[in-house]
């Protein structure tokens, strides 16, 4: 990755947050994933509507770096380590550009997520623990 490819997001970042009608203060700290099941006049017609996921994530939130993708329960210092999400960034040039991401410490996220072959670690954000 070349220098300058990542751009720190600044100013009004409200578009990164859930829309007002979908969130409240509690929602900002919880992942919402809901499947609404609706029926039409013909009960045999069932429509499955998947609502938009709302994830309130900001720089400074805690994250886990796992020692293995097989890990189910993180234990700090054993099979996982706790770190903090860095600034929100977007990659606008080079390969695999993206609009929404966070700077993380390489020591917290294993190379598998960075495209390094042979590595198996994973990392994710745990909203209920922040």
């Amino acid at each position, binding site marked *: 990755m070349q220098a300058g490819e990542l751009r720190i997001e600044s100013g009004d970042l409200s578009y990164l947050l859930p829309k007002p009608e979908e969130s409240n203060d509690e929602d900002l700290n919880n992942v919402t994933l809901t499947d609404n099941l609706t029926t039409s006049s013909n009960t045999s017609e069932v429509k499955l509507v998947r609502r938009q996921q709302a994830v309130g994530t900001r720089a400074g939130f*805690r994250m886990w770096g796992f020692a293995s993708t097989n890990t189910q329960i993180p234990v700090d210092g054993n099979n996982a380590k706790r770190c*903090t999400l860095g600034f929100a960034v977007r990659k606008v040039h080079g390969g695999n550009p993206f609009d929404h991401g966070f700077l993380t*410490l390489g*020591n917290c996220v294993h190379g598998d997520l960075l495209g390094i072959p042979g590595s198996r670690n994973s990392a994710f954000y745990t909203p209920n623990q922040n």
Partner: protein
Amino acid sequence: MLYSPQCGENKLLPIIPTVDKTLVPTSEVCAFGGLHGKMVCGEILEFNVTIQVQNVVSGGNSNFVNVVKVNMNDDYDLGYLGAPVYIPLQVPNSDEFVADPVGQIIETLAQYNNEENQDKKI
């Protein structure tokens, strides 16, 4: 945006990068995060430090150059690794603050010195 207890309470600070980002020894820098999600600030102790950090994931070592060493004013745990570091700037003629991003936490001093109790004030 970042949480910050500037003005006495936690609030979100908009991130506004400045063009001139020259750090001086008197600069106060802050970081938000850690195990308990709080802001800590500190004074710059030293510039252009080179350190070698053990990568607990890969087992190897990583060298960092031009590191800025900061003495934080509050307890500072290992969970801050990777946390955003910024300078809180007060908007002129306003009570509002913004966050000027300056870097990322790559190591704690206690960890750098391989001290036994690494979750403590540095």
